[in-house]
């Protein structure tokens, strides 16, 4: 029993060294391996890996609330987008200090300088702290109202989906002062480093990998603690938990805010790597896709979320270049097949198979 449990845990933990290896491989693959070698990574490839790692972190954030706690958010793009937009505000400020040219959309609006509140975004560290605080506050306010009112299941999913759509419509408006449908772009520097520099791009991708590793270790620790057991208990029978003396809405709120902050951090790393943010980042489509990644990988397993996000997005980048018009059908087909034949997702199914062969596993 002890041995099988140890094996089970070590397999799960295996993703940490794998991700660290990927992290180390990124600079090595670009600088040390000649371009002629198949193992060489182009800057495009490195950038792609960095973006996918951000999506994996986003999926991990959703799995924390959906897989562990049973809250299916179809609006996690809101928090991802908040991180993205707030980071873009910092980047625009940095670009202005660099070029002394106001962003186009501000010029069109007749502004001669950044709005006063924009000073908050002069420093990267302050921006990160403000983003964390703001995301936690928004998530906290939403969670407080909904969880206390005992809004659950599909109703909560619909509300989150509606909110992300509403936020997208809001951001489309030029007068909001966040660039309207063109969004914000023209970034030049981050923390003093030139964004177009190879080392900066590699650095961002490495940061994305490392943040994913740290977040995974943290969330996994949380999931295995009594707190995590309590979240699973809320997922399986919330009423029972209440009758045992648990304030379940407080438990859900804590998990929800943490998840929102992780999603925002993912957005903060994503935007400098793609070089633009616009309202499509909070489109309902992206928010639904996050749930698809988690479902394909296997919800409630944490690793499944990461694996699902990497597989689907890897496949998407590859296939949408080859066969752009067919991609949506492929994604829909894969999703159907997996949800019908492998209800636990890819990783969940693997784990179940492993436990049947005596390797000891559970959700």
């Amino acid at each position, binding site marked *: *029993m002890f041995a099988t449990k140890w094996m089970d845990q070590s397999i799960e933990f295996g993703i940490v060294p794998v991700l660290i290896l990927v992290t180390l491989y990124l600079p090595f693959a670009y600088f040390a391996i000649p371009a002629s070698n198949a193992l060489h990574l182009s800057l495009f490839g490195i950038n792609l890996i960095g973006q996918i790692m951000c999506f994996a972190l986003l999926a991990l954030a959703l799995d924390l609330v959906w897989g562990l706690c049973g809250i299916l958010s179809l609006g996690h793009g809101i928090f991802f987008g908040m991180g993205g937009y707030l980071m873009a505000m910092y980047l625009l400020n940095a670009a202005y200090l660099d070029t002394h040219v106001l962003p186009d959309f501000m010029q069109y609006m007749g502004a001669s300088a950044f709005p006063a509140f924009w000073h908050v975004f002069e420093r990267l560290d302050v921006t990160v702290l403000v983003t964390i605080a703001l995301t936690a506050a928004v998530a906290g306010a939403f969670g407080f109202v909904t969880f206390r009112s005992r809004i659950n299941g599909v109703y909560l999913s619909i509300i989150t989906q509606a909110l992300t759509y509403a936020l997208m419509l809001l951001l489309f408006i030029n007068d909001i002062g966040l660039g309207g449908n063109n969004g914000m772009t023209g970034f030049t520097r981050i923390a003093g480093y030139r964004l177009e520099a190879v080392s900066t791009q590699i650095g961002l991708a490495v940061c994305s990998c490392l943040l994913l590793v740290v977040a995974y270790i943290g969330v996994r620790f*949380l999931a295995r*603690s*009594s*707190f995590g*057991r*309590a979240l*699973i*208990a809320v*997922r*399986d*029978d919330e*009423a*029972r*938990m*209440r*009758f*045992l*003396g*648990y*304030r*379940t809405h*407080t*438990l859900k709120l*804590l998990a929800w805010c943490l998840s929102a902050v992780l999603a925002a951090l993912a957005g903060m790393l994503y935007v400098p790597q793609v070089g633009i943010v616009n309202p499509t980042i909070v489109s309902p489509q992206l928010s639904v896709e996050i749930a698809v990644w988690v479902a394909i990988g296997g919800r409630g397993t944490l690793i499944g979320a990461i694996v699902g996000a990497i597989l689907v997005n890897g496949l998407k980048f590859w296939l949408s270049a080859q066969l752009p018009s067919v991609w949506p059908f492929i994604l829909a087909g894969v999703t159907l097949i997996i949800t019908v034949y492998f209800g636990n997702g890819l990783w969940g199914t693997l784990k179940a198979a492993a436990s049947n062969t005596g390797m000891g596993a*559970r*959700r």
Partner: protein
Amino acid sequence: MSTVLSETAIYISGLSVRFAGFAAITNLSMELRYGEIRAIIGPNGAGKTTLMDVITGKTRPTSGEVFLNKTIDLTQLDETAIARLGIGRKFQKPSIFEALYVRENLELAIRNGRGYMAMMRSRLTREQHDRVDEVLKMIGLVDEGRRIAGTLSHGQKQWLEIGMLLVGDPHVILLDEPVAGMTDHETARTVELIAGLKSPQRAVVVIEHDMDFVGEIADLVSVLHEGQLLGEGSMDKVRNDARVIQVYLGR
């Protein structure tokens, strides 16, 4: 001993519960006392489960009083607060955390929902750990501690849920049909388990349809009918009550 025995645990007076025009409970008054095992019987729709819902804070009464120890007004509190006062409830359908180990179910129960931050790092105290072991023994699941609760048999799940109430050493235990769907052997063991819950510091209330089971465990039987108290007394007395026979036992 005798003074403790007569002390009131739950005091109910003039209780009425109406749902959109339907009267589930009408002007009900009764007292549940420490040291006794009380059975509440009655035909379907008599208001038995609604009564439990009111005591545990799931349903707010339309009117009337419900007090714990004659001092704490339970109608003003929610489920969580009432659970923390030491009122434990077992549901009709086994209601356990199927994805967790049997032991983890009890560990969550003993923590009682206090200190969410501490839950992220702290382990149980020595005393809590021993208490979980003790309860595992009482409910006959010592060897199943590391089993996933969802894989237990129906009877074992019922016992686990009773165990989840027991770890917290509650003052009031409400059991909604604890032997429904059990084999005779399981029922016999449940009788032992519930008889073992009797203590001068505890009131035990059982809702049940199985008359033989009620006769075996109950000190006092209350009969509900259409949301009202029809009679109260020993099983023998209730069995011979003409009105009870007419509405419930007689056919």
